[in-house]
């Protein structure tokens, strides 16, 4: 595994920003996760080599932060908030419904590799609970019908509803 030319430029830019190399661990890991969907062992090696720091530092970051995954996940990762506000507004029903519809359990990926179901802690959208995040998109005020639409549309490869322009990526 290697960095693309473009990524290398970004790395060079990031180096100017921090006084030491270790600080680049998270940004580089983001970069790889964004491209590959997860952070493989090779990716850890790549970052270790690029930054010339002990491997355990990189390994530890990957496993400690919840946002980095060590395995290939579904094309769409459904992160249903199960925190307190969503819970009192019915997130468990939403989770159960997704499990039933996609025939999986929390933490699993569908056989066709389309969906992974996860639960998340409060995503700061409690005013419109229950909610879930898929990639960069929030889906709020969920009910079973809305979930069916969302899953149906995502399954066909399109977004459930028009979203604003692509969010800018990490700079």
């Amino acid at each position: 595994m290697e960095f693309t030319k473009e990524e290398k430029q970004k790395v060079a830019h990031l180096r100017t920003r921090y006084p030491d190399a270790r600080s680049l661990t998270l940004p580089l890991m983001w970069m790889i996760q964004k491209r590959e969907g997860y952070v493989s062992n090779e990716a850890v090696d790549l970052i270790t080599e690029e930054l010339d720091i002990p491997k355990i530092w990189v390994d530890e970051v990957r496993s400690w932060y919840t946002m980095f995954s060590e395995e290939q996940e579904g094309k769409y990762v459904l992160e249903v908030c199960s925190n307190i506000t969503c819970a009192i507004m019915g997130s468990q029903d939403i989770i159960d419904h997704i499990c039933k519809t996609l025939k999986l359990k929390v933490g699993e990926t569908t056989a066709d590799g389309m969906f992974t179901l996860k639960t998340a802690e409060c995503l700061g959208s409690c005013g419109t609970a229950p909610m879930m995040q898929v990639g960069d998109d929030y889906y709020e005020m969920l009910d079973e019908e809305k979930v069916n639409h969302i899953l149906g549309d995502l399954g066909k490869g399109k977004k459930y509803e028009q979203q604003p322009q692509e969010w800018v990526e990490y700079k």
Partner: protein
Amino acid sequence: MKQYRTHCLVCTGTGCVSNHAFDIKTALESEIIKQGLKDEVTVIATGCNGFCERGPVMVVQPENIFYQELKEKDIPFLVEEHFLKGRPVEKMMYVPPKEEAVIPKMSDIEFFKHQLLVVLRNRGRIDPEKIDEYIGYDGYRALGKALTEMKPEQIIEEVKTAGLRGRGGAGFPTGIKWGFCEQAEEDTKYLICNADEGDPGAFMDRSILEADPHAVLEGMVIGAKAIGAQEGFIYVRDEYPLALRRINIAIEQATEYGLLGENILGSGFNFKLNVVRGGGAFVCGEETALIASIEGEVGRPKPRPPYPAQKGLWGKPTNNNNVETWANVPQIILRGGGWFASLGTKESKGTKVFSLVGKVNNTGLVEVPMGTTLRTIVFDIGGGVLKGKKFKAVQSGGPSGGCVPESLIDLPVDFEKLTEAGAIMGSGGLIVMDEDTCMVDVAKYFVEFLEEESCGKCNPCREGLKRLKEVLTLITQGKGEAKHLEMLDDIALLMKEASLCALGATAPNPVLTTLKYFREEYEEHIFQRRCRAKVCKDLIMYRIIAEKCTGCQRCVKACPTEAITGPRSQPHNLEESKCIKCGACYEVCKFDAIAGDAIYIE
């Protein structure tokens, strides 16, 4: 700038966007062109208006008409009636719960009437992606003043006069903190904006960054000047894509305008800002953990002292403030510390942004002067409890906070009063709970959350949370014993005394406040095996009320485990051993014939 007769301020906060706000905006724009109004009416995409509950929403200025729950198909009618014929459309206006007459003007709606917007002053009014609009409403004037007319000590003095206290949770006086860092004798100093918001129920920081990112930037540049910092970092939670986008755009535009970067406003002062994306860990909100995270380490808190003001980022003096704290700064400099200090209570000045969520009619962000009562917030602004249910408690302060019961509803909300009540201000999440919420379950919830999020470094926090969870789980499963209540108290005390950081030290608060105010619910779980809110599945039993059942068979179809049987038109049978207590039958029953009832175990 071009002048228009009418401005349509369409909310494009996250809540409205997920309810198709962008489709509404597009539809409005094309309809306005179609009806030949393009030179008279303009459409502006604004940050969160606050009234997410009714989204998508739009405010029409200058008349101040508030439209809610907009649908794409109604747009042509709306444009024709209101903008062409001058007849505002009642059908899309706000009707208060349980009333019939519409309230056309935004300023007359209870939700907005009691609010005082300082931090959120630009919400629903400007397009956060356009710096010109921010400047149009006095934006960056405070910065001009701070850079050209004020000495660093004067800026710090002004913030001290204002009595501004940190909005990130602890409420430490901001001016004093700046003073510490200013005093540190080092050439390199850093600023941090803490936008790792992770308190369950709180989303004001996200909204501020989404709705008015320049206010935060301006505050930071002023702070940098006061403290003598050359570089700053905004640490944003990874799960906030829109906030990340807007803050990046704001930095770009401000740099272009010479308000950030080298030689700001020709004053010779330099300040650079970077955005750092968090890794999804609640504990990274704690400032020493946050600093570790920027440095590329895992986010484990470190013992203080040394405080960041002496040794922070890369060992240099560092000043960290919360998003909302920074956003208050420009207004203080512009309007004076005295003005700010005239708002609020004796010890807590200014306003506070709260996110009002849970079982309340109007959810959303509200900003009120410190000292406003919980009653005003929950009942006047929030419109009371959903579906007319009975109010039980408000959870304030997230996992370090506590539940305030109904008997304290007239409590004026400020740092001191909330702490006295056993809760804390925290970042400002207010979760309303009704009779259907089980307080033991709530306590268990927060404990589980913190157990997940504890960094695992110190023993009292790591093990204490595990034990708390075990005991609470036993109680909710109907296996509670009298000694458990005492155990909860003991574990809580130990954690308070011995934990390394505030996460562990405040973690028992949700347990302690529920024990204090809702002890009878714990006792019912333990001694009567009863959950009055009908939440704890092991303590409830579904049974069919034969006198009411008409034998319609709806529940028979709904039951996933075939626990309900019975011929049509005769009272059905519910076999307890097969019942998994999913509640599906309860949901579909039209005759109130199935009731979740508490079990009594001899």
